[in-house]
Each structure stands twice: as C-alpha cells, then as structure tokens.
C-alpha cells in the first residue's frame, strides 16, 4: 500500500545575518525514512512536535515533493499523480477542516460526492453506514460552523470515507476531543480497519489512540525512524511501568508488598502514594481493590508513561548505536 525508501525533505530557511545580508540554510525535516505498509495494516506514526510526522504525511499525500528518496502510495507517485491518488485515499487533518463551514453537514457530503465522482447509490450506502455508526443524524442538517468539535470530527471522518478509500491517513484525529468522543472515534476506526480492511496510518500524540487502533507503531524523531514494531513490544521494551496515584483519606505507611508493584513513593507524609507497577504483572483495577482493602481511598488516577517519555527512551536507547 505504501512504500517509502530513503525519503528525505529539506527546507530552505533564510536567516537575517546583517542589515541586508541573509544567509541561506538548509534544514532537514525528514532525513532518511524507509518503511512499508501493507494493505489492511493499522500503523501509528508518532514522534514529538517537529519530528517530521506531518512532513512525511504531506509527502505521502503528494502535497509536498520529496527532495530525495522514493515514495509509492497505492502504486502511484504521490506528487506526480496527486489527483489520481486523491480519489483512492482519504485524509483527515485533526486541526483542519475539509467541510464547508457555512453549509449544513449533509451538503458537504453531497458536494464531496460530486468532487470525487462517486456513484450515488454507493455514496448513499456509505453515508447511511457512517450516519448509523457515528450518530450523525442529530446534526446532519446543522451548518458546520455550529457543530461541536466532536461532532465536526465525526463529520470529517465520514467526509474522508465516502469515496471508499483504500487508505485512510489521519493526522492527529483525536486532538482536542473529550474522552467519550475520542473513544467513539477510535471504535469506529478500529471497526473500519477490521471489517472493511481499510489501511490506516495515523499520527497522534495520544498513545491510547495507538493502543486502541494500531498493531504497529513507528516512532520518528529528528527526521529519522527510531523504532518500528508492534506497540506492545516497543512499550514493554522501553517503559514497562505505569503508575497508580492513590490519594488516601488519612496518611498511611507506604503500601508495600502489593503484587506486581515495583516501587512505592509517598508524598504529603503518606497521604498520596505513587505505586509503579508492571503492566504485564497486574492491572490498575486489581491494584485499586487491593489498596482499598488496606486503607480508605479518597481518589485514584493512573499515569501512563507519556509518549514523549517513550520516544525519549527510544531515543536514548538508539543514540549510542547511531
């Protein structure tokens, strides 16, 4: 579905160095990226801001011409055959809208049918399916400008799917969404990937997106692929621990000796306890029950190693080799 070989993209940046003098400097956004995505895969593409994610996405969709290397998407050269490719892929940008701001949502869909030249019957069928699964009927007749972010994103995803793309590229699709909206969207995308076999490539800062959707994760930083593999393996490899934060009703002695807990830290004289545990050894739910048996619990929360942490560790791990 996607073949990328030694892909590179540099940007020319002009910097003021004197009153009239300006120096020309080349900045590499993507240095040398190679990967392959097969049909039906779901791949999470992550990395910190400025790592080169969006640049890669833009080259995959043909918006940006690579300065070096080779890209093939659906067997096409994206920048040369942009229009043809556009008919075969769907793109969702979490921070941008492809809907017509002033028009009711359904009219955007109808317009897209004409732009993508989709057969009316097939279009109606897919729209009905998305409407059902994403609950669009409540606001289908509402102008896009009046939709909430969660509603709009559901509309965006639908808009990207009406021409039955083989590949759906999502650039931070869950950004800014509340938990329920995120979950709903993830569920839908997982279903899409599983039942229709639509290939998914998504960039995100939310590890849960990857966890729910992608069997494979690619980590990029400084324009290079740092790691590529099943998420569970990568996370296990670099940061196998989660932390349960427990706020107790009364200060207590450190809650040592719970199964699966690697270390215990206390704060506020034992009022707050941070239990690090291995995800393969126990679950947060089991741990909460055990804690509640030992002391009255006021509040709990679970801290995941955040994506920056994972990337940082991957980076630290790789740097001696590089």
């Amino acid at each position: 579905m996607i073949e990328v070989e030694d892909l590179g993209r540099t940007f020319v940046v002009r910097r003021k160095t004197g009153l009239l003098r300006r120096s020309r400097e080349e900045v590499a956004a993507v240095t040398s990226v190679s990967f392959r995505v097969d049909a039906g895969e779901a791949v999470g593409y992550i990395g910190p801001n400025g790592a080169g994610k969006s640049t890669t996405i833009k080259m995959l969709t043909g918006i940006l011409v690579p300065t070096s290397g080779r890209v093939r998407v659906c067997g096409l050269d994206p920048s040369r055959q942009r229009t043809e490719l556009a008919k075969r892929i769907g793109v969702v940008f979490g921070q941008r809208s492809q809907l017509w701001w002033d028009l009711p949502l359904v009219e955007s869909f109808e317009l897209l049918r004409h732009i993508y030249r989709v057969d009316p019957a097939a279009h109606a069928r897919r729209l009905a399916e998305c409407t059902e699964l994403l609950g669009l009927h409540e606001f289908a007749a509402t102008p896009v400008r009046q939709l909430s972010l969660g509603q709009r994103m559901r509309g965006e995803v639908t808009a990207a799917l009406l021409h039955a793309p083989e590949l759906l590229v999502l650039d931070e699709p869950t950004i800014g969404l509340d938990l329920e909206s995120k979950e709903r969207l993830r569920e839908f995308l997982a279903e899409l990937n599983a039942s229709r076999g639509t290939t998914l490539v998504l960039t995100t800062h939310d590890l849960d997106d990857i966890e729910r959707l992608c069997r494979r994760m690619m980590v990029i930083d400084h324009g290079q692929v740092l790691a590529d593999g099943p998420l569970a393996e990568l996370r296990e490899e670099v940061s196998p621990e989660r932390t349960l934060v427990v706020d107790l009703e009364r200060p207590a002695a450190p809650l040592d000796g719970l199964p699966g807990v690697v270390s215990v830290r206390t704060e506020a004289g034992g009022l707050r306890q941070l239990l690090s545990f291995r995800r393969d050894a126990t679950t947060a739910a089991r741990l909460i029950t055990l804690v509640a048996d030992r002391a009255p619990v006021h509040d709990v929360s679970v801290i995941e190693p955040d994506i920056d942490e994972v990337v940082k560790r991957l980076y630290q791990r790789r740097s001696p080799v590089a």
Partner: protein
Amino acid sequence: MCALIGCYLRIALAGFRRYATYRQAALAGTATNVVFGLIKISILSAVYAAQGGGSVGGYDLTMTITYVWLGQGLLSVVQFWGDADLDTRIRTGDVVIDLTRPWNLGMALLAEDLGRAAFASLARFVPPLAIGALLFPFRWPTDPAVLAFFALSALLAVVISQGIRFLLSLSTFWLLDPRGVSGLYRVGGATLAGLEIPLNYFPSWAQTALWFTPFPGMMQSPIDVFVQHGSAAALLAHQALWAVLLTVAGQVVLRRAVHKVVVQGG
C-alpha cells in the same frame, strides 16, 4: 465529462448557497452601496452642472447616472476585494485540504466564485439598479440584445476579477503574507477599473494605457456595453482575452506553487 461539469456546477451551487446564508450582511452591504451611489451621483452631477450640461468624455448626465447605479451593483458582483479566504488557507496551511482533492483548485475556486457572483447579482446588483431605474433618469439599452451582451460582459468581468484575486492569493505561497500586494490592489484596482469615475473622464493617454491592462474589463466594459458607449464586440473581445490569459496564468502559477513551495503548518 458530464460528471466533471456536474462537479463544478455543484461547487458553483455551493458558492451560491454559502453566500445566501448571510442575508443580513447582503442587505447591509446593499444599503451601503446605495448610499455611496447617492453620494457619487451628487458629486458627478455637480460636474455637469458646472459646465452647463452636455457630455463629459462621451457620457451625458443620464449615462453617468446609469453608470453610477450599474457600478454600485456590479461592485459586489465583481468583488474587487473581499474575503481573503484562500490567502488565509495558504497562510495557515489549510490549503493542504484543497490540494488533497481530486479537482483543479483554480477551476473549483472559479466555479465557487461564479456561484457567489450569481447570488450577488440577485441580492446586490438588482436593488441598486431598481432604485436607479425607478427614481432617477436612467438609460436603458435601445436593443434587447444589449442586455445579453451585458450579461456576458459581467460574467467575463467576474472571471477577470477572480483571476486577479486568485493570482494575488497564490502570491502568499511565496510572500507568506499577501497584505502588501493586495493592499496595493485594493487602493488601485477598483479606480483603474472605473469604480470612482468613468474611465472616459481620464486623459486619453491614460485610457489608452489602461486598454493594455485587464482593469477596464472588470467594470467599465460591462457598463459601456450597457449604455452602448463604444463597440460591444471590441469590449467583449478585450475582456475575453484577459479572462483567458488570467485563467491560464493562474493555472501555471498554481502548478509552480504546488511543486516548489512549502505548505505551511504542522
């Protein structure tokens, strides 16, 4: 091919509906146009009063009044300046969405603008014209065929105006902020097109020079066609030439922009 035309027709329809959403804004805009029309008439009438009637630059008073109302109506149809939609989309990077669609962006924007112009013809052109025709001395064409020529001329004026606005917007790809160039156009464009005073008031060397630019084709030409001043065929040919040139230029620049320039934003 049919589907292709259908696509752009739908985009034009969407353009119409987009602008039809904001009726109060249209009403307020029309009111402003009418007020300015009255001001222009009082100023231009003074010119005729001062020289005791007759004609100035081939326009008599009735033709001048007709010119004012047609101009006030055409102003929003042609839209010299207006929403900097594409500029903003390029600057913020939203243009990536436009570029990931299987369409020709230039043609899509033209279609949308024609849809907008169609709405403006009803909401913004007809009212000032009706006021002018009912309450003022007004020069109707002597031949109904002229109305058809006028419609064609107004259409070409929109295409020319859209072509220029498209090129100005595309400059954002290189300049990152088009406010300088579009500011210049804002100041000069409409005047050179004949919005403030008829171009035939200009000295003859200036009129000749303007014929080498697309500007008269955006406003003066349709008005001249309507009031039957000069040869309609020549006016239309000049407009058609510029419409084609600007459309082709837009396509060429768009292609270069897409291939050469960074799309903004993460």
